[in-house]
């Protein structure tokens, strides 16, 4: 990226937008015009100058070489580019899942709600070039790396969730769907679940009334009325999943639904706890609470950039298990007196989650194993799992590439629906510009480890500026323009061990100029929210 921060005179005349809360020196924000200033505060993920290298025997692969972008709340950002341009590496770098060795995130900032996920990065390893080989000797400091991974547990899943490309290999074949989604639920929402169980009121008179009402409705009501009445039982008890269970009891009973009171009462019985069970549930609640406080400490450390030693000591004094790292709820850590209850609760919560992604028979699917489901179905399950922890950001890494077109249409429809319903920010990674056009709000085009162009989706497709974007768009055969001449970009993606000097696209670029071979072009602003890194354009330089 451009190292020197130039501020054009044109930039200075822009009205100063809302002050950036993050600690970065800088004048007015040229990248965010005044009209977008309020939206700027909604930035949930801010990636700045991210560099990720892979250290191989052939040399250092600079997979990401200064990538910067922002994701705002509720927005869908498309990351698009050819194979090997660093799309997936970006996603894995954000959640710090780069396999190490050989890969390492080298520098940059990933600000998740103001917390820098790469805090203390420079202390994790030292690098020493080996003479005359092009290779680098790395000394890793494992204590620091482990601490960083611990801190990431405060962000992974709960803050940033990932959907992987191949759903069949992303699921564990030996656990049922409800086990796997239940695990995620317990990990991220354990406190809420245990609280609901502890505060359940199975003997409340309102519950009996709600049950009678639901049975009455099931006699002649429509499906949605029965559903509402059944869910009201859950609300009366204070355990929403019980309502879901009651609904499926009524549904499966069919015409004999009005006589299914014993089944519902039986389901209710699992919420009547003995004193010992209560004590154990309170123990689990305490673990969940400590986990939550530990996560808060981690986030504070990453936000403020200073180690929270006192907070850590305080936490350690209160710990009930070995240490903070093992401090989380897992089904097999829960005392067996309450395990069945929790398992059942997770099962019905899973069913409710699966309903949310449009699975028609969630009871059977939740009970099933990954091999019993088709690719499209599994991808829905993956999306359900990723969303079950209510993340701020969903990283979708080629979610439809392995699927057929008709199934892809189903999944894209689901993602559009979720976008409007849930409001999670989505980072959609794909090589398919058509998929991006259908779902994304904004698009970053990547080439050989750089972002070459960023623009709102309509703008990018109607006014592509970078020659690479233009080439990509011209090389797609289009169903609506059958007579279009297909033009191709000559050559192929460069080797990233010895990337081309200057602009990395210049060997394939039809407009290459002498300057392109020597200097990397700065990112310039070419219209509202539209930035491009190319010497063909001479707008004001974007400031991060």
């Amino acid at each position, binding site marked *: 990226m451009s190292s020197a921060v130039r501020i054009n005179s044109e930039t200075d005349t822009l009205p100063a937008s809302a002050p950036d809360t993050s600690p970065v020196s800088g004048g007015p924000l040229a990248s965010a015009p005044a009209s977008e200033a309020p939206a700027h505060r909604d930035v949930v993920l801010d990636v700045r100058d991210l560099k990720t290298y892979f250290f191989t025997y052939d040399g250092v692969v600079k997979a990401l070489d200064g990538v910067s972008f922002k994701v705002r709340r509720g927005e869908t950002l498309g990351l698009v580019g050819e194979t090997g341009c660093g799309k997936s590496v970006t996603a894995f770098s954000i959640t710090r899942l780069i396999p190490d060795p050989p890969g390492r995130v080298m520098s940059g900032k990933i600000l998740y709600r103001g917390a820098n996920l790469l805090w203390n990065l420079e202390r994790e390893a030292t690098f020493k070039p080996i003479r005359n080989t092009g290779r680098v000797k790395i000394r890793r400091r494992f204590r620091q790396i482990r601490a960083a991974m611990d801190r990431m547990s405060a962000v992974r899943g709960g803050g940033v969730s990932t959907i992987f490309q191949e759903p069949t290999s992303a699921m564990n074949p030996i656990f049922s769907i409800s086990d796997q989604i239940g695990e995620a639920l317990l990990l991220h929402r354990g406190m809420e679940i245990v609280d609901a169980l502890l505060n359940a009121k199975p003997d409340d008179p309102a519950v009996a009334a709600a049950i009678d009402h639901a049975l009455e409705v099931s006699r002649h009501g429509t499906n949605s009325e029965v559903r509402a009445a059944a869910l009201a039982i859950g609300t009366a008890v204070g355990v929403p999943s019980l309502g879901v269970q009651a609904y499926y009891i009524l549904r499966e009973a069919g015409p004999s639904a009005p006589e299914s009171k014993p089944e519902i009462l039986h389901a209710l019985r699992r919420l009547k706890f003995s004193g010992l069970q209560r004590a154990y549930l309170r123990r689990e609640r305490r673990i969940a609470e400590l986990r939550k406080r530990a996560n808060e400490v981690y986030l504070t450390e990453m936000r403020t950039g200073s180690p929270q030693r006192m907070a850590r000591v305080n936490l350690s004094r209160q710990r009930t298990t070995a240490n903070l790292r093992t401090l989380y709820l897992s089904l097999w850590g829960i005392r067996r007196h309450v395990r069945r209850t929790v398992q059942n609760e997770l099962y019905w919560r899973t069913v409710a989650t699966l309903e949310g992604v449009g699975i028609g028979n969630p009871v059977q699917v939740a009970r099933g194993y990954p091999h019993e489901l088709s690719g499209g179905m599994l991808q829905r399950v993956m999306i359900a799992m990723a969303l079950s922890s209510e993340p701020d950001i969903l990283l979708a890494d080629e979610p439809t590439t392995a699927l*057929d077109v008709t199934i892809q249409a189903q999944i894209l429809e689901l993602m559009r629906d979720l976008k409007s319903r849930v409001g999670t920010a989505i980072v959609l990674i794909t090589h398919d510009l*058509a998929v991006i056009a*259908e779902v994304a709000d904004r698009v970053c085009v990547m080439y050989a480890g750089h972002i070459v162009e960023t623009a709102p989706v309509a703008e990018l497709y109607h006014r592509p500026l970078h020659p690479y974007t233009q080439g990509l768009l011209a*090389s797609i055969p289009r169903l*609506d323009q*059958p007579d279009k001449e*297909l033009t191709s970009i000559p050559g192929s993606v460069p080797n990233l061990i010895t990337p081309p000097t200057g602009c990395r696209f210049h060997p394939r670029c039809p407009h290459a100029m002498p300057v392109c071979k020597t200097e990397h072009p700065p990112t310039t602003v070419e219209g509202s929210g539209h930035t491009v890194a190319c010497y063909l354009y001479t707008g004001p330089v974007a400031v991060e």
Partner: protein
Amino acid sequence: MPGEPPVVLSARNVRKLFPIRGGVFSTRIGDVRAVDGVSLDIHEGETVGLVGESGCGKTTVGRLLLRLIEPTSGQTYYRPPPETFDRLQEIYRELGPVPADDGAATSPSPETVKLLSELDRIADQYSIYRQRHKNLARVREKLQIVFQDPFSSLSPRMLVRDIVAEPLEIHHVGSRSQRYQRVAELLQEVGLNPEHLWRFPHEFSGGQRQRIGIARALALRPELIVLDEPTSALDVSVQAQILNILQKLQREQRLAYLFISHHLSVVRAISHSVVVMYLGKVVERAKTDELFTRPLHPYTQALLSAIPIPDPALKRERIILKGDVPSPAAPPPGCRFHTRCPAVMPICSSVEPPLIEVRENHWVACHLYPDPRIAPEGTDPLVPAGSPLPGTPDPLGPSSGLSAAS
């Protein structure tokens, strides 16, 4: 058809069942009906696109046409003379949609027996499944294939020169030096340099490897190349390069292609006519423009509307199909698409619709379209009164694919 180029390959009622073995003695407990009675013609210099979802039998059809796998029944005729081809058409029309090979079980009428024996004689002469030894080798020379995965279809232990020269060697074409001369020419034709002769496949990118695969297929100057998803492992910019090369070669050498792909936009860009398959059956067959502007089968309509278009301003009504493709081991009775069809009728679940020509060169297998031979004269069965789209039944609404939007 007068004026049409001659037929290179003509498949009739080709069927392939893969046995499912199980039980104590690995006995046959069922069949996967991978390809169930497929018929198609490929003319000289023409590209036929074969599309469908994964598992519908596209690749199996490609391999059957080259006799890389043996069919269970049916014939594929290689270059029948025009008069023989016309006679074949007649015979198959008279025999009806029932596969000829199964007809022998029920005692057939004398006329049928006569037709079948005539068919047998033609098949003996022209069907690639009846040829042996040298005759077969001569046919094989003219039918080549490019595989989907450029990474596993080239031997990692052979030089590019030897890979491309291998088909020439097998068919004893020329002397060694002549063969290598030809290899150098071939590489030039697909846009590679002579210096690439001395390299191994791992030194190439995906697009370059696919070019090597194409050069190998071209080596024997074939008449037909089966392209089995040649670009699905490649990036879009490289895909365009490969498609352009294929079109250039077709212009220069009058090659016929069978282009197998699940990517409809690519098929539209390169094909002259398109065959749509669903669960081992052809559901629709038409010229490319005809198929894409007025798709008739509900499956084709859904397939077209499912394809994302790289233009955010273009908003379309789409048909989203429910559920997944059923297993080909236990295909649904009647029309195989009826479990997912948005325009399903009671008849669909019991009677299998035959593939009929509802309009010139436009074949469709769907109960929505009555047989024009049965329909009263003068009425166009495809245009229900007041419908904005010909052939779009009401249950779908005004939503069929692109023509509604553009």
